[in-house]
């Protein structure tokens, strides 16, 4: 149970959503950070924007927010056949 909380699992839809958000916003952050520094001619702005925005993004993307767990997968019931041993962790023949 402990490891379940620590692992903070999300479902398949959540994974795809998280990936889209991460990639999209990081590209945007990079472009904005570059422009911010270029316009002000100060590299401090660039890295302030990049660091700050990345930290905020981490807060949005890393914890298992409910929106990443709104499509729990519905598994088919396990079929017990002769010759097929079903284990708790996986299937082996």
């Amino acid at each position, binding site marked *: 149970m402990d490891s379940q909380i*620590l*692992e*903070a*699992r*999300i*479902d398949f839809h959540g*994974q795809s959503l*998280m*990936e889209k958000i*991460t*990639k999209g916003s*990081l*590209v945007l*952050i*990079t472009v904005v*950070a*570059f422009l911010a*520094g*270029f316009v*002000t*001619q*100060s*590299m401090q702005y*660039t890295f302030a924007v*990049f660091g700050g925005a*990345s930290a905020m*993004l*981490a807060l949005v*993307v*890393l914890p*298992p927010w409910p929106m990443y767990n709104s499509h729990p997968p519905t598994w088919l019931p396990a079929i017990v056949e002769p010759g097929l041993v079903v284990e708790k962790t996986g299937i082996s023949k």
Partner: protein
Amino acid sequence: MHTLLSRVNNASAFMSSCMMTLLAAIAISSFFLGSQPTGEVGISPVKVFAAKGRRHYSGKQDAAFVNFNVTADLAPLFHWNTKQLFVSLEAEYTNMHGVQNTVVIWDKIIRRKQDAQLHIEGGKNKYAFREVSTSFKDVSPASYALKYNLMPYVGVLQYGEIARTSDDVPFPEAQAKVAS
């Protein structure tokens, strides 16, 4: 992607790629920023004295003493990726055996745009200016050039020349010995 660890791994990998792209973009942008600085170098007549030699040389070795005036506006070189400027005054001459010499006689590190205006009058050489063959006799007149080396926060080091003396400055006969 389903566990916290794999999400951290995935997100930080993409973040470091973005960081590298950002650094590369900054490094490339500095090629398009900054323009040629302007300046002037003036050299008063050079004095040469017979002095004690360098560590391993027994006996005497001529030492040249240079007084110079430098005015330069280096502000055009400062942009967001300029960490510091290394400005140096160099003497270039050829001795009678055909050895080409370039010697830095004075340098200065400039770190802020506010300090980018150089006005130096009656400057003296910071480093000992000696001829390898021990004597400045019969060497060609020297040309003096003010050069810069731009060191960026990230990226490629750039070099350039700010100003050069219009006429070459000859070395006079060595005068009497001075203690050095």
